[in-house]
């Protein structure tokens, strides 16, 4: 796509010429040909100018002047070109796309006039327009092609190409631009000679040579005198926005939520709103669920683990009226709560322990600190506004660089910015580290932000103004500008390098070492004893080496006359500088044959070889185990953002208008300027201002989007079903008043998640039974009116964690570096076991290319860039995994052993314990009977096999008794049962 300059067309209307009937030069033929000003402009004014005028240029298009037509809209294509068939104006009119549906179409004569006008050369009464090239037609290309070496970080040849002033100043070889004289301008000479950008540096620097159209623009700008035109970035001012109207702002989700009235009644507000809708639909709610069901439901909802049987019994025996509230509080206080609900947040954040995009999928070290931050924040019930503020602008909250000591709060805030470092990123490989790929990363971050926090599909506006929602392309790039202090496509910090694909020397550039004193001390404490061990081992080796060396010298000296021995020894002990002349002479003669490197010693003495090998290995092992320096994978503002230009069609090679930071106009009154906030010196304060705006208690979307998400996780569907899209193409809320009541009350109650959980879980709505009643099935099949609780399949993590917990194999260690995975030859991926079992799934490495098979099978998505809503599938591979997988089978044996330890060999008791541990209830008599029969049959089969002489027990390993085998089989069946997998 050839890039077109953003033209300033001089359009001084040649009124005198028109009046005198003088035809301007270049428009010689056809006196009857239509002319823009007299024949076309009136039509455009009548039919198009409502939307496409100077003040309100929809799609960036202004049809009220010839200049506007030539400039075209945000795609950068002029509306009128030489060929009729390629003129956008004609294409849109002829195809019936414009004016849009509902507006008066052009009449036939009007169409004919436009056709004729374009066909006869689109004449205009104005003088031949001359195109002025401004510095902003040229600077984007200098940023793309040159400033990596001639800019903020590096000034090769003392040259800085970022501003008109610095360009004119030039560098070591003098001025690079001679205004008015392109031929004498060094910059063009070097470009034409293909010396710049230097071909050999292209890949490393992530740049490509200039295109000829770009060179033409640069030439033209110099030709015109390399003038600096006064152009300020497009930002919101206090005069009303021309692109977004108050009408646009009227859509429900763009309006501030207002708390609806709830009449006094014994119903909770939630129940009141739900009941009202049920009544309207002539539906009733389901009866309350049984206490056992509720206990299991609460435990899974809040912790993702089965309740312990002791707790179940205690809750069952609680005679108080508020027993249910106590159960809810018990699990809200559990440390497992943060692991469960943190995981939901990690989904929308797109958490991953690897960079993705490239096949190598390099590991992101230290990313896990962000995971821990999320879990801790939820356990602490950190207010959501604070939680967001830290994740979006934690680096701008404190002056961490100059602080005397980094506090835990400061470190937390830096770790929190990991939220903005989660998307797939291939730029660790030099070859895909150009502005284009970097911009993909920025665009993905904006998409994550939009879908997870703002409930908007922002991505559309990357290439053109949003087709459905009032989000102009300009607003998208204002957001880009908000992030540009930290995410600068022209001044990029690399992620983890892809091995062998980067010549970058410092691969840790996205890390900060500003860890808190506590973390630092802990690290030193962990490290010191190991360092001492290493030092001791090294010392021992050195001593032994010295022994062998002196033996070596002794042996070699045997060939030297004995009278010299003493002098030679003395010479060897003297450093080269201090040697006397005679010693120097001795050295020339003997030193080389008497000196032995470690390699020589290894060659000469087999004992030393062996000793050194073993010592080297143990040192290496120790070094590998040394805890790495604690670092923070963070995003921070670097204070010198490059300018932000709109990328027409989303292409960086096609830059458009210069914009400044701002927020989507439709979510504001359209006349409030964006004011940056500075808490940290040297930071632009753009993200902080953005985060403050987003977490304002009056924000129309922030609270609505999150309460809807929490609701979704409790009920299996959102009040707004499209969780990440509250725009016009999203699904309207089923209970708009309930949504607003929740949103406003959530903010009033300190943005507290735990408050919200209590409200929801203590409602009668949430405590309904999940049994499907005919009326509910027939008239509320998808449960949008909440006439029951849905039956829900466990997600991947609670399923795996339940298998582990039930079989007593759950390692309770929390936090820290993730557990690795092992990939089998056939592709099966399994998390590695620790000494005490396996840790909860949230602590397993989330590498994009190696997700544990059981999780992938049960719908754990690959994050690209994040996951707004997980699918919920029911496929044969899930059955196959639970039935046949070796690890699952191993767990069933461990479950059986655990049961035997508790219940002894009494089959009846065993069955009771299995039901208690796995299903949180006692078996019915029928179930017990069935179990006992099955167990005896299974035992008989295993006994038969043992009796079968053909089958020999595996050598060296005592196989479990037939009774144990049978018990494990029974445990296996229970762990495969629908009741284990589904929560009522």
């Amino acid at each position, binding site marked *: 796509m050839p890039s077109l300059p953003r033209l300033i067309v001089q359009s001084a209307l040649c009124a005198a010429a028109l009046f005198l009937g003088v035809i301007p030069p270049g428009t010689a033929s056809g006196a009857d040909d239509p002319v823009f000003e007299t024949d076309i402009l009136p039509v455009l004014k009548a039919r198009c100018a409502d939307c496409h005028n100077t003040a309100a240029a929809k799609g960036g298009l202004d049809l009220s002047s010839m200049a506007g037509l030539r400039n075209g809209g945000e795609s950068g294509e002029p509306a009128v070109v030489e060929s009729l068939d390629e003129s956008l104006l004609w294409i849109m009119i002829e195809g019936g796309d414009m004016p849009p549906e509902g507006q008066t179409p052009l009449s036939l004569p009007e169409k004919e006039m436009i056709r004729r006008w374009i066909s006869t050369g689109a004449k205009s009464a104005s003088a031949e327009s001359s195109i002025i090239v401004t510095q902003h037609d040229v600077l984007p290309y200098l940023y793309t092609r040159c400033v990596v070496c001639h800019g903020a970080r590096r000034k090769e040849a003392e040259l800085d190409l970022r501003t008109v002033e610095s360009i004119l100043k030039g560098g070591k070889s003098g001025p690079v631009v001679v205004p008015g004289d392109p031929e004498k301008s060094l910059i063009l000479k070097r470009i034409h000679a*293909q010396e710049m950008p230097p071909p050999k540096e292209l890949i490393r620097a992530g740049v490509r040579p200039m295109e000829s159209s770009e060179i033409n623009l640069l030439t033209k700008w110099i030709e015109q005198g390399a003038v600096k035109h006064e152009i300020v970035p497009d930002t919101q001012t206090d005069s009303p926005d021309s692109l977004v109207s108050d009408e646009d702002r009227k859509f429900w989700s763009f309006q501030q939520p207002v708390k609806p009235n709830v009449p006094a009644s014994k119903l909770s507000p939630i129940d009141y709103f739900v009941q009202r809708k049920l009544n309207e639909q002539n539906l009733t709610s389901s009866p309350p669920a049984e206490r056992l069901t509720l206990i299991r439901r609460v435990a899974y909802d809040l912790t993702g683990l089965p309740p312990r049987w002791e707790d179940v019994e205690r809750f069952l025996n609680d005679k108080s009226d508020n027993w249910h509230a106590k159960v809810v509080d018990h699990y809200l206080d559990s440390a497992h709560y943060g692991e469960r609900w943190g995981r939901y947040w990690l989904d929308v954040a797109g958490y991953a322990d690897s960079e993705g*995009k*490239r096949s190598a999928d390099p590991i992101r070290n230290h990313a896990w600190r962000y995971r821990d931050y999320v879990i801790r924040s939820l356990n602490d019930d950190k207010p959501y506004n604070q939680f967001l503020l830290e994740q979006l602008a934690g680096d701008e909250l404190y002056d961490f660089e100059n602080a005397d000591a980094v506090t835990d709060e400061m470190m937390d805030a830096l770790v929190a910015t990991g939220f903005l470092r989660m998307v797939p990123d*291939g730029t660790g490989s030099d*070859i*895909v580290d150009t502005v284009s790929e970097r911009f993909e990363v920025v665009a993905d971050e904006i998409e994550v932000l939009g879908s997870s926090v703002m409930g908007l*599909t922002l991505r559309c506006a990357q290439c053109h103004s949003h087709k*459905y929602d009032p989000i102009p392309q300009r607003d998208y790039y204002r957001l880009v500008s908000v992030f540009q202090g930290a995410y600068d496509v022209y001044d990029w910090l690399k992620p983890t390098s892809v091995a062998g694909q980067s010549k970058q020397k410092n691969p840790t550039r996205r890390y900060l070492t500003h860890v808190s004193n506590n973390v630092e001390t802990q690290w030193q404490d962990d490290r010191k004893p190991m360092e001492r061990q290493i030092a001791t081992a090294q010392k021992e080796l050195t001593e032994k080496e010295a022994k062998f060396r002196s033996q070596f010298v002794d042996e070699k000296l045997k060939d030297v006359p004995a009278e010299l021995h003493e002098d030679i020894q003395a010479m060897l002990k003297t450093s080269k500088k201090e040697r006397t002349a005679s010693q120097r002479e001795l050295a020339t003669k003997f030193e080389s044959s008497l000196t032995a490197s470690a390699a020589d010693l290894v060659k000469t003495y087999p004992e030393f070889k062996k000793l050194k090998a073993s010592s080297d290995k143990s040192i290496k092992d120790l070094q590998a185990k040394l805890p790495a320096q604690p670092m923070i994978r963070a995003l921070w503002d670097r204070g010198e953002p490059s300018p932000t230009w709109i990328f027409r069609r989303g292409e960086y090679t096609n830059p458009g208008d210069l914009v400044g930071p701002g927020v989507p106009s439709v979510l504001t009154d359209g006349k409030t300027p964006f004011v940056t906030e500075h808490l940290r010196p040297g930071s632009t304060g753009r993200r902080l201002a953005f985060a403050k705006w987003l977490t304002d208690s009056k924000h129309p979307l922030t609270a609505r989007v999150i309460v809807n998400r929490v609701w979704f996780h409790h009920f299996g*569907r959102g009040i707004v079903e*499209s969780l990440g899209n509250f725009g*016009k*193409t999203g*699904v309207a809320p089923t209970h708009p008043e309930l949504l607003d009541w929740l949103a406003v009350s959530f903010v009033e109650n300190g943005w507290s998640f735990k408050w919200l959980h209590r409200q929801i879980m203590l409602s009668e709505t949430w405590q309904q039974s*999940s*049994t*499907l009643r005919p009326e509910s*099935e*027939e008239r509320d099949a998808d449960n*949008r009116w909440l006439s029951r609780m849905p*039956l829900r*399949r466990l997600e991947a993590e609670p399923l795996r964690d339940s298998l582990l917990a039930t079989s007593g194999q759950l390692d309770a260690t929390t936090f820290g570096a993730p557990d690795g995975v092992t990939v089998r*030859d*056939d592709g*099966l991926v399994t998390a590695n076991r620790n000494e005490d079992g396996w840790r909860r799934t949230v602590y397993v490495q989330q590498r994009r*290319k190696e997700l544990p*098979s059981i999780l992938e099978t049960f*719908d754990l998505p*690959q994050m*690209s*860039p994040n996951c707004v809503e997980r*699918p*919920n*599938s*029911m*496929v*044969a*591979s*899930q*059955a*196959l995994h639970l*039935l*046949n*997988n070796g690890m699952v089978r191993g767990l069933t044996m461990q479950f059986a052993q655990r049961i035997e330890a508790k219940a002894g060999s009494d089959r009846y008791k065993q069955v009771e314990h299995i039901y208690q541990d796995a299903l949180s209830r006692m078996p019915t008599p*029928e*179930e017990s009977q*069935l179990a006992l029969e*099955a167990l005896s049959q*299974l035992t008989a*089969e295993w006994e*038969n*096999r043992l009796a079968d002489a053909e089958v020999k027990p595996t050598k060296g390993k005592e196989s479990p008794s037939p009774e144990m085998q049978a018990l494990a*089989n029974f445990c*296996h*069946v229970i762990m495969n*049962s*629908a*009741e284990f*997998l*589904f929560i*009522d």
Partner: protein
Amino acid sequence: MSPRDRRSFMGSVANGLQGAALASLFSQDFYGRHAVAADKPHQSVRRAFDLTPKQTHFKPRAKAVIQLFMQGGPSQVDLFDPKPELDRNHGKSILKDIAKDLSSPDAAGGLMRSPFKFAQHGQAGTYVSELLPHLAKHVDDIAVIRSMFNTHQNHEPALFKIQSGKLMPGLPSLGSWVTYGLGSENQNLPAYVVLDSLEGRLPTNSGQNWQSGYLPPLYQGTRMRSQGTPILNLKPETDEPSTVEQLSRDLLGRLDRMHKAKRPGELQLDARIASYELAARMQLSASDALDITQETPQTLEAYGIGEKQTDAYGRQCLLARRLVERGVRFVQLFTSGQQWDNHSNIGTSLPSICGKTDLPIAGLLADLKQRGLIDDVLVVWGGEFGRLPIAQMRQGNDMKNAGRDHGPPGFSVWFAGAGIKGGTVYGNTDEIGWNAAENRVSVNDWHATILHALGLHNEELFFEHHGFKEKLTGVENVRIVDEIFA
């Protein structure tokens, strides 16, 4: 079928009225998603997805696809696209004109003639290089497109593009779209099967080549292996008597039916029971499909099975036939690693991979023809891009070590089978084979053409996602390459 009919129907099945045809209804993925129609923006529909055969948009030419994917980038000017200009200008440097298009200009040599000889074959006289003597015998059954182009010079993005339409990861692959659009003729086997090489290394981007993206996981490719366990977890990984397995299954069935009886009307539970039944059937079907001992020695020989060089790919090709024969919709074959990525020593590395694949592919075409399957199966050959016509000198200046760098701007692919006009050569590159010049075919065109052969219209095959109608061909204008069809 209304929900109520469906329920009573399920009930009767659960009571023992089973059969393959009925059971096909159960391989369902109850996958709750909102769907938004443009004219009814606020309506919500919860959809269930399954693999039952679907209505095509129009009469299809092909019912199944075998995609012979040649990961790495096969060199068009050494295989299908002879360029006399390269012979004439061998060694001439054109670096000044092309430097900006190269990923590693340092290693760029001059124009390089093909080290291999071309000859015309068949009645149509299609040019094929000497590296593909077996395929050359089938040129009258294949249509070569010489004017494909891709838009990125690195494997990963170019692969994302050719597998799923855009340069980015996370989108549904072609095979997923096809199975989403058509379902499957066999409910006991996965609808979309991936056969990766027995030689061991997965292609670049590994599983992302066959992912289902935002489509339900039901449509994801399933890796099958012809040795060991064909599908992950297909067989119990601990040893137990078959009677124990049977007893456990029976007990599980009873417990699940008791559980379901207390929860009438829950389709999820029916679906789950069905998924367990399917798993059991799959154990038998998959093993049977992969059991090539059922084939005659002649067949094995025709695929090159038993010969060291061709054994691995021969097995993949034979399995592909056995799978489409059983109604599998989309079979995708990968060669090990990036053997088509001939950056150096193209004089030996290209003959090596051609030698491994040429005979098996010819064997496959002959076998499909002989069994009449060729009329229903579309065979698609090609990589993510081609190679540049200049030399790449990664190892010093000795032309003996020369290879070719990635060439996205122009490359060759071919089609055979259902509805294809054999002997066609469509499109052309420029005189040195750098750019697709005449009748250019984009990746999106190529996708639309494959869908077209299957009776699917690329604009009508969409999935509602986050309020948008997502399509394999995205918002690009595409052209179906009608010229290759009979």
